């Protein structure tokens, strides 16, 4: 009999997690045949479970998260083999929430998995995620907030909760032996594109399974001017665009489908003094993780930032020409979307008109007038109402049998 195991992947954000989760979701039937459960009836099931576990508001999506963790945990407990739970925001969980989560998984052997990327790449990525979640904080303010030793602001407390590797592993791994704790490192820029997946596959025991890896859900990055533009858009529309509209229109259409395609613009980075500070922090983390004796898929050296010769493009003071070019792409995308909606509207109007004409023809039939008069008369008497009820019940039955 196979050992009952849970592979619990709790972060960190921006480490290829969206791709991994989409592969797992799309291949969940094949995985189940191989004894591996990915318990999800929708692609964001584990995200909702994480919201539920941590009682996190998320622009109204939390309404869909009621009871999601308990349902997921129940499926895991019932499964006799290996189960995978994966969401990067789980890194934010507090000790109390982690205790609840681990207790809910039953008696399975829990393996903790954390995927990690070097801090110098994570800092701008986290700011960009903030902007993609309709925040308007400037980059300089963001950098100041995360360097505040007290971490009092919401920005700082979130950033460190989901990025500080030794702390995440302390919180989640307090009761898990080090040999069951796995760190997957994101390869350095320029590595083979499949290398990260190979590390995930090894850690999750997916090697040799013919998975369909051609998935399209990812969380693509934006360039510096594109992020600036998005922040300006947030400032302009936040007052009247509801979260339920923001997600498809701004985050998906503008950010993911339009602005992320502009790959030739300058990438986000960090200013030199932040690079120096972040590198020192990363060196401390790597030494700490090496001493703890975790299983590492990849190389802890991947977490040390490279010396960068690329100039720093300040998104708070961008070259306006680049932002304007990005804005033109946004206008184009919005126009195309409008054209699509106008076509859809015209199509619906045509169908409605057709339906109204059909209805009009039905009203014009002489028998309709007679039937209408009969029903009207019958409805005014108790006997008539009874007859009508009997007729409607009989009609219902014959409709069903037909």
């Amino acid at each position: 009999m196979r050992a009952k195991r849970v592979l619990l992947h709790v972060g960190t954000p921006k480490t290829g997690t969206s791709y991994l989760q989409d592969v797992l979701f799309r291949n969940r039937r094949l995985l189940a045949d191989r004894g591996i459960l990915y318990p999800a009836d929708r692609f964001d099931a584990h995200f909702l479970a994480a919201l539920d576990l941590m009682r996190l508001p998320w622009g109204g999506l939390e309404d869909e998260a009621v009871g999601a963790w308990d349902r997921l945990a129940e499926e895991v407990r019932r499964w006799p083999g290996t189960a995978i739970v994966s969401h990067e925001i789980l890194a934010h969980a507090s000790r109390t929430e982690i205790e609840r989560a681990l207790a809910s998984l039953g008696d399975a052997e829990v393996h903790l998995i954390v995927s990690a990327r070097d801090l110098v790449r994570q800092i701008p990525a986290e700011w960009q995620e903030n902007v993609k979640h309709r925040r308007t904080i400037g980059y300089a303010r963001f950098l100041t907030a995360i360097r505040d030793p007290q971490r009092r602001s919401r920005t700082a407390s979130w950033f460190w909760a989901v990025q500080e590797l030794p702390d995440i592993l302390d919180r989640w791994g307090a009761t898990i032996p080090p040999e069951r704790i796995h760190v997957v490192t994101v390869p350095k820029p320029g590595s083979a594109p499949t290398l990260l997946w190979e590390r995930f596959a090894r850690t999750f025991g997916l090697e040799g399974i013919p998975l369909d890896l051609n998935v399209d859900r990812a969380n693509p990055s934006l360039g510096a001017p594109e992020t600036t533009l998005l922040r300006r858009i947030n400032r302009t529309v936040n007052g009247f665009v509801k979260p339920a509209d923001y997600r498809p229109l701004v985050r998906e259409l503008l950010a993911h489908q339009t602005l992320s395609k502009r790959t030739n613009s300058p990438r986000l980075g960090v200013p030199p003094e932040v690079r120096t500070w972040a590198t020192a922090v990363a060196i401390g983390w790597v030494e700490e993780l090496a001493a703890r004796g975790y299983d590492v898929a990849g190389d802890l050296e991947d977490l040390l930032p490279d010396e960068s010769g690329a100039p720093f493009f300040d998104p708070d003071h961008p070259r306006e020409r680049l932002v304007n070019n990005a804005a033109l792409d946004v206008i184009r995308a919005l126009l195309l979307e409008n054209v699509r909606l106008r076509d859809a509207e015209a199509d619906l109007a045509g169908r409605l008109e057709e339906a109204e004409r059909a209805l009009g023809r039905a009203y014009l039939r002489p028998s309709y007038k007679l039937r209408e008069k009969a029903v009207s008369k019958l409805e005014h008497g108790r006997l008539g109402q009874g007859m009508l009820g009997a007729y409607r019940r009989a009609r219902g039955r014959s409709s069903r049998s037909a």
Partner: protein
Amino acid sequence: MTAQARAWGWVAHLTSGGTTPWADWTDDGSASRAGVLPGAQHLELLRRLNLAGPTPTPLVRRVLASGAPGRGQQELGLVGVAEPGRYGAPPVDPADLPDDELVRLASGVLADLVVSAPEPAPPRNRRPRLFRHEYRLGGNRLTADALRAQLIRDGRPPGGTRPTVVMLLGDLGAHLADTWAARVRRAFAPPWDDWIHELAERPQLPPRLDPVARARAWADQVGVERVHLALAPAAAAEALGVRGLTGPTRLSHAALDAAGHTKGVLRVLVNDVEREQRLRGVLLPWLEAGDTPTLPAPVVPRRHRGWLEHEARRIRAGLADAGYAVHGGELDQLLPAEPVRTTGPTYGEVLTVMLRTLRVATMEGQA
């Protein structure tokens, strides 16, 4: 004595009703035990609860076991106990914690209590009377909801083909505050400042909130002579020919904010139908009992006073021109009075209401 032992001594002191701040705590270390210390936020919340008398044991357990919902700092270590300079947020003196962090934790505890409370009983309404006045209530939504509920309980549901329409009106600032409060009581509502700012940005109130537009819409349906303006609940009773109607219980702005924070957590705990039931049947009665009477209702911020006065004058003129019957005073009562205070509640005031409400919930045997 180790720092850990001192901390466990403080935990024992707090769980038995103590109120000594961490900085002043000295101890012989006899309460020392193994395990992970509760977070500084949890301990400080407990200490604040104890300031009003020892906290009942079930509530103590809930506070210590509850995770703080939403975004913010996780369980913080106690200064002098947790090793500074390692990982995670630095340890703190609990007395220095900002009130908003304690509000966040308190909202989680309160939401848990609301969910675990017995299901609220549905209202017991008398069967509709055979001969009753046809009526509809409009205007101030908070007052209209309260009066309608009393009338339904008395067997007088609203409706009818040619109803008497009673528009409940008053000081426009208070009228808007009540409209927002009614939204908070029902379901989602943006923060007061955002909501009122969004209204004040418009040239005039939107039709759904504009008494002139609402009265005109009713007059078009039932005739001007059937539309009555009531400037007090008793005046509404007079217009409807009934007795004994009383106005709504108003919550302070701090209590309404406390409701908003708690509702945010309830969104993740129960579905929308149950949320509304528990909001009306459990949380709001608790907040009414836990509210501080001296705290003010929402007031229109000073920067929007000019807009408010302009709107009040426009509405007074529009209603006067239409010639509706007025009960309970003069239309001048629509003009806003000068408020005592024009700023919203502090987190400290919201926390005060929440601490009192947690006690109310516990006293009712729900903890």
